[in-house]
């Protein structure tokens, strides 16, 4: 085995060239250098001599391993089907949940909730007798026609002004409550 010398690739690179693992410049060098090709050929002989030769696999063992392969292939198919079902089901579930939440949101906007219905009604109880009725609207209307400044609690709609709109809102609240009761 000749010495590759300083200008030649080292022995590890030449061994890598034997199996096609060497960098392109090493491969190119080996193709062009007879001395290095000779070393690579000797390394191939060395590899062949050192490689253990295993016993052949008996047919029953081969058959058992291939049967195991088929069993696991079938399990893999089942696992993928289950996974797909879970993904589809989860996506459908998420879509249904999102739809339900959206619908609830819309309903919340369109149909005032219980708290929304009772809040103006309680505010409209301007005479403080615990009942919202048409008399509350009359109280506000009467205050508007008096010379005295109306109390701020008569501002039923919360716009910081006591006027006819507060009378109307109190009247509507009284009518609405009257219908529900």
């Amino acid at each position: 085995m000749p010495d590759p010398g300083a200008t030649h690739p080292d022995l590890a690179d030449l061994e890598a060239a034997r199996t096609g693992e060497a960098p392109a410049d090493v491969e190119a060098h080996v193709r062009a250098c007879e001395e290095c090709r000779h070393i690579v050929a000797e390394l191939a002989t060395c590899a062949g001599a050192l490689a253990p030769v295993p016993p052949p696999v008996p047919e029953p063992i081969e058959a058992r391993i291939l049967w195991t392969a088929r069993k696991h292939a079938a399990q893999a198919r089942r696992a993928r089907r289950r996974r797909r079902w879970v993904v589809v089901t989860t996506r459908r579930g998420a879509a249904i949940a999102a739809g339900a939440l959206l619908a609830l949101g819309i309903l919340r906007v369109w149909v005032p909730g219980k708290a929304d219905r009772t809040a103006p009604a309680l505010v409209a109880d301007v005479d403080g007798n615990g009942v919202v009725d048409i008399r509350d609207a009359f109280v506000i209307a009467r205050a508007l026609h008096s010379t005295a400044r109306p109390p701020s609690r008569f501002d039923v709609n919360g716009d910081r002004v006591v006027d006819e709109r507060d009378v109307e809102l109190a009247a509507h609240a009284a009518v609405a409550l009257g219908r529900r009761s």
Partner: protein
Amino acid sequence: MCSGDESDDDLLVRAGHGDEDAFAGLYRRHRDWVLRIAWRLTGDREDALDVLQEAFTYLFRKVGDPTFALSTTLRGFLYPTVRHLALDRRRRRRPEVDVDDLAEVLPAPAGPTNISRELLAAVNALPRPQREVVVMRFGDGLSLQQIADASGIPLGTVKSRLHHALAAMRRALGSE
């Protein structure tokens, strides 16, 4: 069917979808290599065949798991598995023997010739770190990168050890 041109990665993808031919293709492609390592490490035909079955059963189970993702080459994945199974089996059979020493020794060639006997003697005379690299390279057929990964050492160190080992072997065989 499994084509010889198909890469391991392609076969693994098909196997992951439950393709029986891909499972069988992976087995046939790596069978001899796995058996070679198992046989070298166990030193026993029956044990080597048991390790072959256990290693592929483990691989098949992993490949069939939809969450399995290979982070290295298939041989990079199989090598520590086979090594562990084989050494464990050998340890159980002969608890008095240090299996770590056995792991870095090449068995006697099946058909002894002068060249193989001299080569074997030259390999077995190497310092342990160099012998380990030579055995993994020539005995187990690993790439340089796979040796680095399996040993947990940099690729440059693998190359350096291999170079010094080959130079020592050449001196021992009178090649220089």
